[in-house]
């Protein structure tokens, strides 16, 4: 027996999907905004990944865009060089996820020994190295395009894909966080020494959280590549890692609801300012945005949701 509130959530989720699809089909929603909505879902997936790493496992990562990029380039390389049409898309997405996860595992094992800011700067360095390697990748694989960018990626990403995968990611993260592994990750965040003292294998859970977050970043990257059909190393430079971090912190560390709301709000706000501002002060868009960021942070240092969660995202909560 499902509770009534759960039914409401399912109906609302389906209704959003139906409204977007219907308005897009009826040409009420122009393709540009449809693309923005898809990008919001992609940012949600990527930010949920970072929330697992930083919000729940407490490992400060400033290199999230690198894993996003690894997923994006891997999947784009597969759909581009393996000409079997749209059927290659799911396979390419899975390959992107696996590539990001494997690289996350290999780099995570040595550097997760570092703590807090040192880990942050090491992951930041890793992210920049990955970006420079993609800048020079055309020397090895001309398809990747190097610093000229990778063109001609098929447009496979649709709203259905990103919406379903975003919902799937929310469910995955929710179930993970409330599983025994997830609780072990949270204990590492709260106090690594105490966690170790009660017999939690901290290395294992740090790596688990990190790899899972990187995999989600890779998934988001694969979707991004097939949405915009063009990839450039600038898309994955360290400032993009900051964007994801901003979303996670603005939403509130360790809150799925916060990350989802902040990812959508952030994407829509940045684009919305483009529409709202008169053209003569459009230059001010990127001046207003950091000011808003500072004001929100000064008013709510713990983030919008600050550890709170919508009820339906908590298992066993009476509703």
């Amino acid at each position, binding site marked *: 027996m499902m509770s009534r509130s759960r039914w409401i959530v399912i109906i609302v989720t389906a209704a959003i999907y139906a409204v977007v699809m219907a308005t897009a089909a009826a040409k009420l929603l122009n393709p540009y905004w449809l693309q923005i909505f898809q990008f919001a879902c992609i940012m949600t997936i990527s930010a949920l990944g970072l929330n697992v790493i930083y919000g729940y496992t407490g490992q400060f990562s400033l290199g999230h865009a690198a894993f996003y990029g690894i997923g994006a380039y891997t999947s784009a390389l597969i759909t581009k060089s393996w000409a079997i049409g749209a059927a290659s898309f799911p396979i390419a997405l899975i390959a992107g996820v696996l590539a990001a996860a494997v690289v996350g595992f290999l780099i995570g094992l040595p550097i997760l020994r570092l703590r807090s*800011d040192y880990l942050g700067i090491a992951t930041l360095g890793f992210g920049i190295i990955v970006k420079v390697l993609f800048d020079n990748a055309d020397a090895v694989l001309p398809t990747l395009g190097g610093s000229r960018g990778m063109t001609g990626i098929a447009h496979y990403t649709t709203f259905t894909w990103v919406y379903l995968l975003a919902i799937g990611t929310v469910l995955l993260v929710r179930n993970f966080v409330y599983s025994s592994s997830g609780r072990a990750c949270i204990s590492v965040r709260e106090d690594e020494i105490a966690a170790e003292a009660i017999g939690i294998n901290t290395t294992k859970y740090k790596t688990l959280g990190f790899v899972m977050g990187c995999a989600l970043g890779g998934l988001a990257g694969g979707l991004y590549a097939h949405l915009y059909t063009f990839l450039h190393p600038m898309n994955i430079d360290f400032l993009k890692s900051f964007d994801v971090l901003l979303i996670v912190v603005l939403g509130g560390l360790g809150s799925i609801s916060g990350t989802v709301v902040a990812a959508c709000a952030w994407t829509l706000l940045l684009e919305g300012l483009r529409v709202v501002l008169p053209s003569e002060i459009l230059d001010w868009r990127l001046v207003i945005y950091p000011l808003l960021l500072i004001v929100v942070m000064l008013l709510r240092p713990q983030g919008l949701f600050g550890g709170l969660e919508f009820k339906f995202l908590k298992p066993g909560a009476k509703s």
Partner: protein
Amino acid sequence: MAYFVQQLINGLQLGFVYALIALGYTMVYGIVRLINFAHGDVFMVGAYLGFYAITRAHMPFPLAILVAMAGCAVLGVVIERIAYKPLRTAPRIAALITAIGVSLFIEYFTSLRFVFGPNYLAYPQPIRIVNYNLGGVSITSIQIVVFAVATALLIFLQLFVQKTKTGMAMRAVSFDRDTARLMGINVDWIISITFAIGSALAAAGGVLYGMAYPQINPFMGIMPGLKAFVAAVLGGIGVIPGAMIGALILGVVEVLAAAFVSSTMRDVFAFGILILVLLVKPTGILGGPSQEKV
């Protein structure tokens, strides 16, 4: 061999500029445990202030650098008061996010046409460029000025922190803020002074950078700022001599990698050495053992 020495000198030139920025990072981090991402943009503002002092006000070079330093000292204190001070008791990540916000704000605000404008500007040469040839290795008058100014400022800073009463208070606050407050140290004042000195040094770095690599734009601070932060971490963040050593190592490694391997791969070496050093010594070259609370 002469080519190697030549590149070594070029590397040291870059390293000294990094050192001036890195000191601000490391001092601020030592005192408030904040990665001040806006620091690279203060460096940029310093370069522009020097630019306008030389081109518009026709000031001589030493005066221009002082004007830039004074202007940025004020800017640093204003940033601290508005964006960081209210968050001193909040989770540390909140201040980091406002630092990113301040950084973006400075970059895009100064890109507006009525401020600095978005275009690249050619930096004036305030001193005559002379090439001195020492046994096959050439060293320019600009390099000599960079070395001299940077070394003088570094020595001044070291003396200030080690010998004066304010310097002692800074070390006390960095060691334990609450105890320092109990001992009658005005912590807010010391933090402001730290931001002022750090920003002034970054401004000097900005003017020297503009002279040595004569092109400036509002986004020029991002990469040097980041590299300087890496240098500070490499040397052991919070340790002043560490920042200098880290910066010199980073500058030399970067230039040598560009000269002998590939100029597009220089960042791979710069950040690769950071990761390697951290893996061997997680708190940097001169960093003390990290404290573990139980």
